[in-house]
């Protein structure tokens, strides 16, 4: 029995096992068609994007050498914020997903890429690509559900500590990259379970330490030093740019799985899961952000979170193209395509974080039947 089936309206009760299999086949067909069509124009897109991002970062850093002069501070900080957002979202996240591996360019490859982030790429790839994308929204398996510090689903047990979660969430948003690094290390759990002496954990913690040192040295020591008399203002500018990047990426990412309308699943629901059922879980467990082309690029196309979760290794510039077909599939099978504007989705996610900081208003009947099979909802 899945968690979603315990809700008053089970969104997949009307689907038969054949329906789910057909949904899987149709999604495979969409993926195969786009994959076969990848070529020159996609390669041009990512190369141009990388060139733009690097030029913008370089230009902004150059302007910040004169950040003592307020207009230069504003221009440089704005430019650096955008450059850092592009680097993490549309480039880093997507390259590390292997979306551009097909180009066989060792410089734009998931195995060689390192990003402007305190979590080392290989650790993030494990916790994100492998664990989160495989176990999307499975309570107890997908740590992205609240990142282990928050309660974002009625089915997660409440603890008095959760009263503070609106505050944790705000702090996490401000220092998001550090939150991610701690999360990728499974810091809380490893410390709680006394694994701090475990050599494997220590090696990974050291790698994070090294990465933090390099990032901090660059942003808060070397670039300010290069600015000479503008030392403090450049330091402030870099801090501001990192803060903007963190707040932005946290907001976008919260919109992917936390707004009202997304479903969560029980651990046992994924045992023996078929490809169609896996797809279905991605469809129901993700939410989109509607908006302009610029918003899509700045969000790393995670505004197309549903499409991203269906096809995590499809180049991000193609998500927009497959939206009509994916939406049509949702409509045909009577499934809810959760989407909304950025302010609406951010508000919805925050509302949930605040609501769930308190225990559930209506305690649910926990004695429900547990015999029904996984996501094959019919007749459950």
């Amino acid at each position: 029995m899945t968690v979603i089936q315990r809700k008053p309206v089970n969104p997949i009760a009307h689907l038969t096992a054949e329906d789910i299999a057909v949904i899987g086949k149709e999604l495979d067909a969409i993926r195969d068609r786009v994959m076969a069509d990848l070529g020159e124009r996609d390669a041009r897109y990512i190369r141009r994007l990388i060139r733009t991002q690097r030029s913008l970062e370089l230009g902004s850093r150059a302007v910040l050498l004169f950040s003592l002069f307020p207009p230069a501070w504003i221009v440089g900080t704005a430019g650096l914020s955008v450059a850092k957002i592009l680097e993490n979202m549309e480039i880093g996240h997507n390259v590390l997903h292997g979306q551009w591996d097909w180009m066989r360019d060792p410089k734009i490859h998931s195995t060689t890429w390192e990003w402007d982030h305190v979590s080392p790429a290989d650790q993030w790839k494990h916790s994100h690509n492998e664990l989160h994308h495989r176990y999307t929204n499975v309570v107890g398996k997908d740590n992205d559900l609240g990142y282990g510090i928050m309660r974002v689903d009625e089915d997660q047990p409440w603890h008095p500590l959760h009263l503070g979660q609106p505050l944790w969430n705000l702090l996490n948003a401000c220092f998001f990259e550090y939150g991610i690094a701690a999360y990728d290390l499974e810091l809380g759990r490893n410390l709680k379970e006394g694994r701090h002496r475990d050599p494997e954990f220590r090696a990974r913690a050291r790698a994070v330490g090294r990465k933090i040192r390099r990032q901090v040295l660059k942003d808060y020591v070397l670039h300010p030093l290069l600015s000479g008399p503008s030392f403090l203002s450049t330091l402030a500018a870099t801090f501001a740019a990192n803060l903007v990047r963190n707040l932005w990426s946290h907001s976008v990412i919260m919109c992917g799985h936390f707004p009202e309308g997304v479903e969560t699943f029980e651990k046992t629901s994924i045992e023996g899961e078929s490809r169609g059922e896996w797809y279905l879980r991605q469809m129901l467990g993700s939410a989109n952000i509607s908006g302009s082309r610029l918003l899509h690029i700045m969000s790393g196309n995670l505004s197309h979170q549903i499409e991203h979760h269906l096809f995590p290794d499809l180049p991000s510039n193609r998500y927009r193209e497959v939206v009509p077909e994916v939406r049509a599939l949702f409509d045909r099978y009577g499934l809810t395509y959760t989407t909304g504007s950025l302010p609406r989705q951010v508000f919805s996610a925050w509302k949930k974080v605040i609501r769930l900081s308190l225990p559930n208003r209506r305690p649910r009947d926990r004695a429900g039947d547990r015999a029904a099979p996984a996501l094959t909802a019919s007749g459950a």
Partner: protein
Amino acid sequence: MTTTVPRSPAPASLRRRFLRLAAAVTTPLVPDDYLDLVAPLRAGADLRGRIVEVRPETRDAATVVIQPGRDWRGHRPGQYVRLGVDVDGVRQWRAYSVTSAPGRHHDPITITVKAIPGGLVSNHLVRHVRPGTIVQLDQAQGEFVLPATPPARVLLVTAGSGITPVMGMLRSGVLAGSDVTLVHSAPTAADVIFGAELRNLAAAGTVRLVERHTREDGQLSLADLAALVPDHRDRETWACGPVGLIDALTAHWAAAERAGRLHIERFRPTVISPGAGGTVTFGRSGVTVTADGSTPLLEVGETAGVLMPSGCRMGICYGCVLPLRQGAVRDLRNGAFTTAVPGDGVLVQTCVSAAAGPCDLDH
């Protein structure tokens, strides 16, 4: 008497320190990532070249003029260069003989490419590539070269684009003092790459040119060769052409116990035709097993006791990719084949790929 503590040479350590500082400023990127934006051919960069010009030679062959980066170390006549070209967004590596004579250090080089029917890279280079395009390069390599002192009597046997390394030799002028016979096969006179230039060399007495137009004269046989060049066994011989020709010559020279005098270059790489299943070699683990066409390579490796990198096991996390040194694999999700020859640098997702012929994984 005083002793001095030996000091490390100051300039080198200063340079190293500067590079370390520069890298700390650009981390997680390296300074090269930024320099590549403006000067991809500079000294110290990964070796690249810029295509300067594409000159048609015959209806299906063209000469590509490439300005190599500053670190190009030059070539010896007859050597080839590996070229990484992006075709339809995908980097493809191929080897081509350098057809220009060795010049001064920063002179452009040329390669001459014959479009093979269905050939991805050759057709791209002959028909589509535009001047200004940046290509990846390796330093020149290959043992198909002339000795320091050229032999007095030389035989060159070539067919089709097999003329290309030999053209580099002829243009270099190294053979100026030798008695040179060139036997070259092409379908028709119009198909002879560098036809006019070769005929001019012959007219000037630099080489004795025997053109063989196979559309009329048929394939060159060993008997033909013996008739055309009676003293061929006494000549130091360089041959380049299709596998069949090279194999026949090799056998003939070996039978005459003159194998040491024959230098060969096979210009057509091993053709890989994907099938279902095959032997899988995990090179560094020293394990070779037979796999069917439906078992993921990840499982094949694990079953054979190889410690395999793995992740989601469903093709989404890219945690299991390994370099395919050579061979063919099939994507179990959509049936698409991926083939590789040494140097291609292809990484395959082992959890969703099965053997489609012999595969050699670098692991």
